[in-house]
């Protein structure tokens, strides 16, 4: 391993600009003549929009224009779309309602944009917006997904009777029912997977500019996938032809999924920029982020596990109602279906699984992928069920797991996933050893002496990452392929630009991608620059989400590097006057086997561009190669997290006293960065389990719309973590990478809740396990015990 190659904990190349305040986020960019835009948003969750009087606003100081949903409708621009068609059980397509970038006729959630003011300054735009008068006819709202499909519920969209988007299912219902009939034990759980707000620290922003001379747009945007944004805004919204729209995603301050989607604000900024003839900038404040960023999770689930006398799992039955909010966001349909149910087998050989998912509209912010996207929900179902089953059967949770682990690969699950490789027992055993699970009993007794309840919880999760084989997702309804692209541009002096269709917003690609190039070409890592996030510079790519950048993006890089090496060898053969087959490339040098003749990479690069010493009719000058890589399967990162908690029964406060994570991510390019991804993922999972909760009142007002009432995890809420890995290389891609970005968020909620329920002795508690709810659960246990005595 070289000091900067694969496996080295290289310090990040991108850090210098961030630690010195030189990062360039969208809001940091200003254009000459720039205006500010302010969105007037519906204060009602469900209301007919009558007349909008903008006259007083238009007369306010500094106002450039006031535009409404009616004017947007007149523009004949298209609707925002959900790009993944899911079919109901009866074969009918999902009921996708129009989603105009500005509401017209009806507002469907608090925060739905109804008008905009464009002014010289943001303060002036806000002042003027206060003078806009909107006639609202307030309609009854529905926010609870369990009430949305009920008779008499308010109807949100004409295309979706009973607010039902689809009734989907997967698996074999008859075989599963038979497994339950023959089961000697059935474990049943009902739970809510709480709605979360992703909250990347950088709020979303858009800066749009129109150049009438070339009839083209430039959009600076907080997006995880600039090409996908351009494609949707071009092909579906119809703002401009694709080659007349440049999308730049500069430094982006976190995404966690919420910046994948194409939102109304960037569309409106583009539209307004052409209308007013000046650049238009929008930056969300945090309140707007709460009201407009796609939320995550929000499932209500009933799940049952069937087991035989020996504790072998024989069946699993799941019914989930998924709340997709007021409109179908870009990938919302896939999250509670194809990103969820195919993971319900967990790490276990479960012969029969049947899962039904009903998706509904409600008068709430749209729900879409958030770190893990479906897979945290699946892991929560499986890992809570398995832990509770072990308790009910008086078995050690680890023993029940080991009894049911998948041990031979490839393994075809009963819910479509084909697990390629893994060693689940290895990660479980390693985690138990590191965590000193054997010493838990002693620690528990010691805690009891201090009046504390101590609990231990496992989560042996699996996820599907490296999204995704294009033809497979096409069969499942995706409107796009999910390959990735790369280009290696070798310069005449031997430095390299790597262009990737992925995008980094915290993941450190500028370092890890450069490590792969540095090792392969034998050049210093300083000589490699990673270029991404600009549709004018980079070839079409699919962006970053689903832990795909390493597994898919780097595979494209490797393919491009293969081509560079092949061509370079042809040139080397001429330079060294040898047969091409005798050229070997090692440590940055091309040499002729069995001789001391060689040429260094940088010298060869110069010769490639000078083109004096090889026949250019046979070999083109230059050294630049591109590649598109389409994965053959999903990848399946898996591992075991163990959480240990201590609870103060007097206050119900939970403290995480120890955390061990052992993950199998396949090949690790940079262990420092991978550990950081685990830390961050676990923090978000712990946030879901202990703190974060999105609460609407019955009228659809968001009660948790700021950091004063939505509990973001702070430093003192989180433990230090012990993070380690086991490795089974992914057989499906050239580097053996599985992906690491979402694992922590997938594993953590079940680990925390298994630990808390272990400590307090009841399963009847929902996330987030706040001190209040833990205290109440402890009281109910005590009351039941007293009643029984």
């Amino acid at each position, binding site marked *: 391993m070289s000091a900067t190659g694969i496996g080295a904990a290289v310090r990040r190349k991108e850090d210098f600009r961030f630690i010195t305040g030189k*990062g360039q986020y969208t809001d*940091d960019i200003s254009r000459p003549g720039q205006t500010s835009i302010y969105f007037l948003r519906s204060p009602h969750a469900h209301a007919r929009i009558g007349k909008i009087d903008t006259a007083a606003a238009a007369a306010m100081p500094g106002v450039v224009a006031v535009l409404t949903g009616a004017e947007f409708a007149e523009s004949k621009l298209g609707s925002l779309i959900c790009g993944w068609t899911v079919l109901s059980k009866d074969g009918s397509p999902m009921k996708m309602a129009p989603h105009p970038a500005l509401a017209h006729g009806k507002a469907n959630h608090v925060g739905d944009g109804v008008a905009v003011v464009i002014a010289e300054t943001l303060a002036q735009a806000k002042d003027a917006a206060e003078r806009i008068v909107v006639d609202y006819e307030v309609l009854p709202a529905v926010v609870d997904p369990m009430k949305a499909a009920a008779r008499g519920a308010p109807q949100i969209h004409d295309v979706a009777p009973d607010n039902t988007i689809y009734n989907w299912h997967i698996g074999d219902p008859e075989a599963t029912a038979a497994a339950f009939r023959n089961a000697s034990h059935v474990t049943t759980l009902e739970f809510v997977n709480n709605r979360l707000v992703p909250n990347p620290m*950088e*709020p979303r922003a858009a800066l749009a500019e129109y150049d009438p001379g070339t009839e083209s747009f430039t959009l600076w945007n907080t997006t995880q996938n600039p090409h996908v944004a351009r494609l949707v805004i071009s092909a579906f919204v119809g703002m401009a032809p694709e080659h007349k729209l440049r999308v730049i995603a500069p430094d982006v301050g976190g995404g966690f999924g919420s910046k994948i989607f194409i939102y109304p604000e960037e569309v409106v900024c583009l539209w307004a920029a052409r209308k007013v003839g000046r650049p238009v900038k929008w930056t969300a404040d*945090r309140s707007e982020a709460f009201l407009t960023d796609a939320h995550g999770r929000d499932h209500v689930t009933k799940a049952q596990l069937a087991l035989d006398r020996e504790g072998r799992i024989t069946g699993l039955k799941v019914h989930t109602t998924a709340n997709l909010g007021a409109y179908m966001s870009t990938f919302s349909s896939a999250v509670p279906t194809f990103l969820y149910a195919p993971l319900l087998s967990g790490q276990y050989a479960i012969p029969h699984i049947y899962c039904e998912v009903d998706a509904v509209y409600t008068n709430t912010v749209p729900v879409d992928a958030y770190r893990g996207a479906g897979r945290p929900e699946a892991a929560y179902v499986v890992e809570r069920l398995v832990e509770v089953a072990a308790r009910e059967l008086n078995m050690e949770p680890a023993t029940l797991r080991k009894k049911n682990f998948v041990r031979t690969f490839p393994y075809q699950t009963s819910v479509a996933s084909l697990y390629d490789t893994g060693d689940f027992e290895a990660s479980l055993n390693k985690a138990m050893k590191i965590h000193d699970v054997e010493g838990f009993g002693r620690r528990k007794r010691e805690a009891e002496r201090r009046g504390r309840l101590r609990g231990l919880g496992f989560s042996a999760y699996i996820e599907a990452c490296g999204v995704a084989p294009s033809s497979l997702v096409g069969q499942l309804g995706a409107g796009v392929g999910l390959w990735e692209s790369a280009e290696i541009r070798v310069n005449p002096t031997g430095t390299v630009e790597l262009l990737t269709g992925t995008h980094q917003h915290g993941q450190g690609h500028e370092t890890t991608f450069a490590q792969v190039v540095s090792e392969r070409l034998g050049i210093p890592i300083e000589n490699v620059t990673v270029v991404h996030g600009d549709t004018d510079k980079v070839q079409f790519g699919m962006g970053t989400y689903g832990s795909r950048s390493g597994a898919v993006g780097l595979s494209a890089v490797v393919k491009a590097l293969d081509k560079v090496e092949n061509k370079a060898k042809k040139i080397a053969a001429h330079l060294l006057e040898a047969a091409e087959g005798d050229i070997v490339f090692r440590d940055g040098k091309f040499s002729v086997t069995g001789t001391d003749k060689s040429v260094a990479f940088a010298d060869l690069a110069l010769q490639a561009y000078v083109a004096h010493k090889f026949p250019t009719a046979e070999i083109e000058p230059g050294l630049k190669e591109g590649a598109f890589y389409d994965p053959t399967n999903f990848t399946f990162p898996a591992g075991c997290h163990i959480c240990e908690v201590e609870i103060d029964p007097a206050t119900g406060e939970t403290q995480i006293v120890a955390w061990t994570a052992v993950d199998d991510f396949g090949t690790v390019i940079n262990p420092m960065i991978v550990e950081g991804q685990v830390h961050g993922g676990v923090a978000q999972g712990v946030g879901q389990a202990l703190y974060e909760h999105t609460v609407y009142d019955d009228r659809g007002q968001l009660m948790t719309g700021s*950091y004063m009432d939505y509990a973001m995890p702070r*430093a003192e809420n989180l433990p230090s*973590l012990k993070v380690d890995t086991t490795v089974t290389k992914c057989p499906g891609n050239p580097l053996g990478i599985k992906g690491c970005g979402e694992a922590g968020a997938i594993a953590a909620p079940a680990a925390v809740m298994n630990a808390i329920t272990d400590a307090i002795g009841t399963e009847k508690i929902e996330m987030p396990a706040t001190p209040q709810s833990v205290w109440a659960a402890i009281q109910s246990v005590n009351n039941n015990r007293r009643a029984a005595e």
Partner: protein
Amino acid sequence: MPTVSMTVNGKQVKADIDPRTLLVQFLRENLRLTGTHVGCDTSQCGACVVHVNGKAIKSCTALALGMDGAEVTTIEGLASGSQLHPMQEAFRENHGLQCGFCTPGMIMTAVDIVRRKGHDLEEKLIREELEGNICRCTGYHNIVKAIGAGAKAMAKEGSTQQAAE
């Protein structure tokens, strides 16, 4: 419009501003010092922390006019020339940042913690002191490590005084 003048990163600045201009807006929009960020609107997240007269404040909660005559240090003024401040170096060395958005505020807060609490910082104390800074990427694990290491490095370089200025 009233006039405000202050010293920012050692440079005298003066401008006519709308009286409601916040310090963070003045830094970002008037002076184009965009290293100081805005991550919330309730003074919770700490992405906007700068030093005013040697002490850390949230620049989203201060009026620029109220800073008349003050000495302000932002993330752009922390390094001396090309020499990084030890706390900046510690964040890089310990992978204390991912997306980088909260980082300037974190580093400015961290330097202030060292000024107030010294160079030998226990993990628990660091975590408590970070109450006013939110990071969504790192889970704080490496930020806590970085601050502990940065505090020690500052002792070596005797830079507490320098940072306080």
